[in-house]
């Protein structure tokens, strides 16, 4: 019998073993209890990726601490590999809540580290589908008193550093411990109503749902979460070419010069952004944040507005920090459109507000991507510092002719005064260079697009290094 005939034979013991292993996985999947609206890890992967594009890493892996031959621990609870979404390569990690009810098994940890490392090297975004359920540390049973394999988790994970690949997370259940730590460092977090993240054990963890702004986006079920991850991937720039443009679409309802002061957020978004490009993270009356596109330039944004002057609260500044974070990590231009009177006095007294504001300010300051501001109404304190202060490095600030620019909320600080009596619209600010341009509403989108184009020319050049005294250290050419 030739070798070729031998290996193709169904009697081949190797092929039989392979079939047996695969059968065990199929059996495990077949026995999986079904809950309406909840997908299995492999179903989630298939719903996310381009059909047929999944290349699994370690498809036959299993837990090394169980004695049942691996039948109960397929993939050691973490399905991993690479695939494409809209043709763009991604790395995948999908937790299985039925395998040992945990996310930190030894073999799974190895796979996770490999995915993180290879993604960091190649700049490929990572999609982490988290569903750790109870999050027990079954891999390291305390009653056995050993630290078998624990050293594997003491290696540096390339997450959150400036060079790490973007980490996109979908949370489908409770995630506890190290997995939750990792996910909290993610660049984008979408969760279903069943999702929660906690460092502490489940009995101490908070209830599922929106954990006070911890998630960028909260959705109903698995399919909606996955659809938003797909949209996020199609809305963010490629890591290989930060200047890559999407297709420029016309806005839904272009702004015209009949626009009135204090227009609604929806009117402003419909008039400035390409139709169908918006993926909103926080969407409340008077405040919307997310990612979108302006004449094909993908941007992270926050928009305030509406018939009554908006005051930024704790969740608003958290959301601003998140889009600024995306801007920094993905080198996406940051666009603020503001009609705000500053901070909500009730929220601003809270230490939590101040802490989140500090994070947001830091993120806005740090992003080296282009930063543009359009003031559509009240720009008091330029709509509060976090949304447009020059000291945070805003590159281009413009206003509509009826904008009111003042150092503080005129009405709040001068009871009884009419704003127009104390401030001069945008003209003084423009005259002194605090604003770079005053534009008619019908010109705003094109003006923003032009400066997005100009400023994006330098996106692929590394930012200059700055020393502790804030001085450029790269001023002297390297010899």
């Amino acid at each position, binding site marked *: 019998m030739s070798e070729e005939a031998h290996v193709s034979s169904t009697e081949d013991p190797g092929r039989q073993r392979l079939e047996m292993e695969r059968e065990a996985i199929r059996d495990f999947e077949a026995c999986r209890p079904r809950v309406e609206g909840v997908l299995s890890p492999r179903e989630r992967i298939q719903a996310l990726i381009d059909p047929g594009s999944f290349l699994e890493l370690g498809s036959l892996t299993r837990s090394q601490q169980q004695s049942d031959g691996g039948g109960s621990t397929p993939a050691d609870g973490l399905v991993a590999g690479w695939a494409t979404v809209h043709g763009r390569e991604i790395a995948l990690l999908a937790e299985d809540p039925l395998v040992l009810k945990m996310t930190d098994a030894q073999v799974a940890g190895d796979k996770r580290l490999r995915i993180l490392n290879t993604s960091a090297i190649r700049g490929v975004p990572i999609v982490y589908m988290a569903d750790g359920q109870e999050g027990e540390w079954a891999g390291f049973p305390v009653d056995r008193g050993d630290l078998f394999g624990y050293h594997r988790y003491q290696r540096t994970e390339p997450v959150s550093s400036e060079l790490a690949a973007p980490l996109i997370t979908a949370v489908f259940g409770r995630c506890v411990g190290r997995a939750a730590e990792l996910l909290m460092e993610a660049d984008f977090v979408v969760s279903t109503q069943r999702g929660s993240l906690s460092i502490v054990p489940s009995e101490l963890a908070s209830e599922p749902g929106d954990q006070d702004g911890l998630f960028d986006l909260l959705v109903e079920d698995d399919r909606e979460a996955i659809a938003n991850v797909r949209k996020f991937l199609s809305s963010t720039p490629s890591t290989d070419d930060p200047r890559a443009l999407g297709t420029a679409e016309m806005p839904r309802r272009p702004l015209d010069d009949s626009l009135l002061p204090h227009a609604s957020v929806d009117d402003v978004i419909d008039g400035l952004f390409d139709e169908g490009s918006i993926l909103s993270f926080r969407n409340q009356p008077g405040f919307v944040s997310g990612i979108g596109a302006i004449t094909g330039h993908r941007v992270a944004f926050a928009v305030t507005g509406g018939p009554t002057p908006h005051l930024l609260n704790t969740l608003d500044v958290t959301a601003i920090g998140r889009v600024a974070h995306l801007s920094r990590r993905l080198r996406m231009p940051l666009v603020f459109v503001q009609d705000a009177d500053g901070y909500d006095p009730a929220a601003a007294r809270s230490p939590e507000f101040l802490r989140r504001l500090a994070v947001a300010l830091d993120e806005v300051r740090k992003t080296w991507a282009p930063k543009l501001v359009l003031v559509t109404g009240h720009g008091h304190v330029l709509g509060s510092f976090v949304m447009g202060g020059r000291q945070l490095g805003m590159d281009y600030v413009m206003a509509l002719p009826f904008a009111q620019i003042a150092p503080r909320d005129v009405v709040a600080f001068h009871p009884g005064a009419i704003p127009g009596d104390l401030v001069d619209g945008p003209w003084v600010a423009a*005259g002194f260079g605090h604003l770079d341009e005053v534009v*008619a509403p019908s010109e705003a989108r094109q003006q923003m697009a032009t400066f997005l184009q*100009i*400023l994006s020319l330098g996106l692929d*050049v590394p930012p200059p290094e700055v020393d502790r005294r804030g001085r*450029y250290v790269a001023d*002297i*050419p390297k010899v």
Partner: protein
Amino acid sequence: MAELHRRRNCADNLGGVVAVERAHARGLLTAPERLELLLDPGSRVPFGTLFHSDNLSQADETFGDGELDGFGTIDGRWVAYFASDPRVKGGSGGPADFLHAETFRNIVEKAALPLIYLMQGGGARIDEAMSSQFIAFPATGMGVRKVFPRRGVFLTAVLGSYYAPWNVAQADFSVMTESSNISLTAPPLVYVGTGQQVTAEELGGAQVQARVTGQIDAVVPDEVAALAMVRVAFGYLPSRAGIDPPIVDCGDSPDRSCPELYDIVPTALNRAYDVRRVITTIVDRNSFLEFSPEFARNLVTGLARMNGRTVLLIANQPKFLAGVIDSGAVIKAKKIFNLCNELDLPLLSLVDTPGVLPTKEQEHRGVMTALYEHGIRRFRPTAPKVTVVLRKGVGFAIGAMSGGDPEGITFAWPNSQICFTGVEACVRVVHRREIEESDDPSALITELSERYTGTSAPWSAAHVGYLDDVIDPAETRMRVIRAFEVTRRHR
């Protein structure tokens, strides 16, 4: 909206028809007219059009506060521009400019854009700068930082009287019109400070800059020519460090043989010739753009293209001072080496020099330090460097011309002489006593000279690899192009 239109109308018509007629009567263009000539049609994007001076009562008359900033394209490539606007306070700059200028500079830096200055004006506005707040000016008013690697190219055109010309000092290429002048300070201030009476032309006129200081790369008859020159020079340069300049097909084969070089360069070491003829023969046809042709004429520098790609050029000029290296030549070469270093442009060096000018005046001018600094500078560039020794390469001067650079490629023509000092000087110093005691000193000098001439031929250096090759003059163009190809950085 009505107020927006009113203000824009004021900004567009600063000074009215009178200001336009006044400028034209002096043979000058207005700032908007200059920008029309500089930029591609319809590409101009003004920046901060409603910015004005600190004085609110003069807002309508001072839009721009003496400057027009913005962006546009030249041959499709984005540039930033900064144009003096003499319609407002003579084009001088006041304290109000600081914030505006800082914002503009930030955009230029962030986008790593090329920046083009069109200058005509009085420098700092003296009355508004008479404040201790002036201390902030040097930090903010002295041009864009050359931040690496976010470093766009800088070009400056001087189109009238212009004082405190920092952007000439930092320019990668500068041009001025024959009737313009630049100086750090103005004649009235010179008189008050020193009692010296000088005219603006004597202080820093075009001829002074072209012949004496070397601070300007080109002098042209008028503004139209100056703006055209800026466009031409920009065509040779990359938009910023780290990217390639445009490739321009000159229709000149890279394999073109150059037998005419046999006739251009005399074999006799002491015969003069014009090295420009060598340059124009080697590089792509009609592509040579010379820098400061009237300054330090013993060294020729400039930009050219070879096989469509930009190269920097430095060449000894045997027609003047036999092509020696002196302090003026070092100043002139410094510009080329800086461009090579900062913009990563390839460098072609053509060597034919009898050495460093050995005079008392040169020693007193500090030629030793200048040469040392130049020697350090020449090793900085990591861009491709190709050197061709045409005839003589003597002493420290050959190093100053980038010859023998271990990171570069060095060729020599077959009849070249490379040695520590001139052959006759060597003989007279080393064999002084023998010559003094000789019955026929002249014959002895000739005999000894022949011996040293033999050892100075390129062959021994080529045999040990200090020269990369000895090439036929007719092959020079194709060999240099090939050398640049194999050493070009892959981006």
